[in-house]
């Protein structure tokens, strides 16, 4: 049962202030996003219509801690088909941003590994200007699957290395200072 006392009526405004989340209030819950979703096809627990409805109702904690929030593959099918131009793929991104901030502040716990990988990726871009595939993938395996996982990834890494497709060391661009300034400017909000 949903208790109105537990709802946060400001949640939808909070999302709409986040870059990408601006159009959430346009959603009229037609389910067009969900019927064409490739992830919903293989896992019914991922239901973008339900995420949007809960967010609009103000079920803040439930939306932010729902593991299925991290199942969107950013394929943009719902974004393309939405009759209300909600820009769902980016709304999901906006909700993920709030969830990550809450997790960082220790208010909620995220059990999915998607943000672990995404942040390793972005940090590698922050320091090098390019993504450091071997380092990021190796660290991710080690962090999420332990030493066994990292060893399990090694044969694939070796195959790629033999084909000249994987660099052991990161490639650093010359303009890393400019990259840092971009990070600083967008963090100002």
């Amino acid at each position, binding site marked *: 049962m949903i208790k109105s006392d537990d709802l946060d009526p400001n949640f939808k405004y909070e999302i709409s202030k986040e*870059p*990408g989340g601006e159009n959430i209030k346009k959603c009229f819950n037609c389910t067009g996003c969900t019927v064409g979703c*490739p*992830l919903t096809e*293989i*896992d019914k627990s991922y239901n973008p219509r339900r995420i949007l409805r809960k967010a609009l109702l103000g079920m803040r904690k439930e939306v932010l801690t729902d593991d299925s929030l*991290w*199942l969107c*593959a*950013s*394929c*943009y*099918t719902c*974004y*393309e088909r939405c009759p209300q131009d909600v820009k769902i*793929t*980016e709304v*999901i*991104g*906006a909700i*993920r*941003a709030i969830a*990550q901030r809450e997790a960082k502040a220790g208010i909620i716990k995220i059990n*999915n*590994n*998607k*943000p*672990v*990988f*995404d942040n390793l*990726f*972005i940090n590698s*871009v922050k320091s090098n*200007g*390019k*993504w450091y*595939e071997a380092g990021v*993938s190796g660290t*991710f395996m080690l962090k999420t699957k332990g030493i066994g996982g990292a060893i399990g990834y090694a044969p*694939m890494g070796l*195959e*790629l290395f033999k*084909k*000249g*497709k*994987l*660099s052991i060391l990161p*490639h650093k*661009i*010359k*303009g890393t200072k*400019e*990259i840092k*300034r*971009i*990070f*600083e*400017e*967008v963090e*100002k909000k």
Partner: protein
Amino acid sequence: MKLAYYPGCTLHGTAREYDASTKAVCKAAGVDLVEIDDWNCCGALEAIFDKELSMGLSARNNFKAQKTGLDLVIPCSICSHNLSRADTAMKNDEAFRAKIERALGEKYNGVNIKHLLDVIINDIGTDAISGKFTKSLKGIKAVAYYGCLLVRPSEVSKFDNPENPISLDNLIISTGADCLPFTQKTKCCGGNLLMSKQDYAFILTKRLFDEAKAAGANCVVVACPMCHMLLDGQQAVIEKAHNTVIDMPVLYFTQLIGLAMGLGEKELELDKNMVSTSKLIGSIGKGETKVEVKAQIKGQEAEAAQ
């Protein structure tokens, strides 16, 4: 034709054969590519939870392209999506433009950005490019796989139909290869979940192969390094996880048209694909052309034009 060129991280790594075949095909077609100086990562889809960061990182490359005074061509669907989206935001969102101009200390005017497939189909033109073909690829039975960001969202990618694109189908047909009907052509391969939810990514990719095989294809043709990473790079792992045999070469469209241009296998780096392409190349000139399939695709084209 002279164009600024943004390869993106993967084309200097796991998708090196896409870089090599892009350069080879463009050279043969008389297109001069000028790689932009000191480019950076576009943020890929990993920065989707921080839209401004994703567009800010992409915008720095647009500034670099602007300096060349040329239009910008991008072979990667994700990079092309991100840089195009950043260009629109820089033109229309004053607050965002102010932030990025402050960070980089330059004024932004805008760049014309296109995916490589768009350039080949619409700027060079299918007729002009097929005029360079010296060899029929009869024997190759392909499905055209567009994936997601090559054609979606249509507010960013405007060159083909987002639900039933046909540009790549027609390019394949122009090589003399068969292009088979493929209802999965714009279904997601799950690439973005490869690290965090590998089992789901594998289910999504395997579905593509199931239909490609049922259609009678002997290869899949793609225009995105992320799609290629799943379909080609992970194919052996998917076979193991699903206890099945897929054995399906996956070519970049530049490798396919390079073969039709008579370019060498080394030049197109066909030995860099993870799934061996040698049997497929051996089949060229040996297959029977299915005329009725071609007629069907041409019919779809007429329907879309109406």
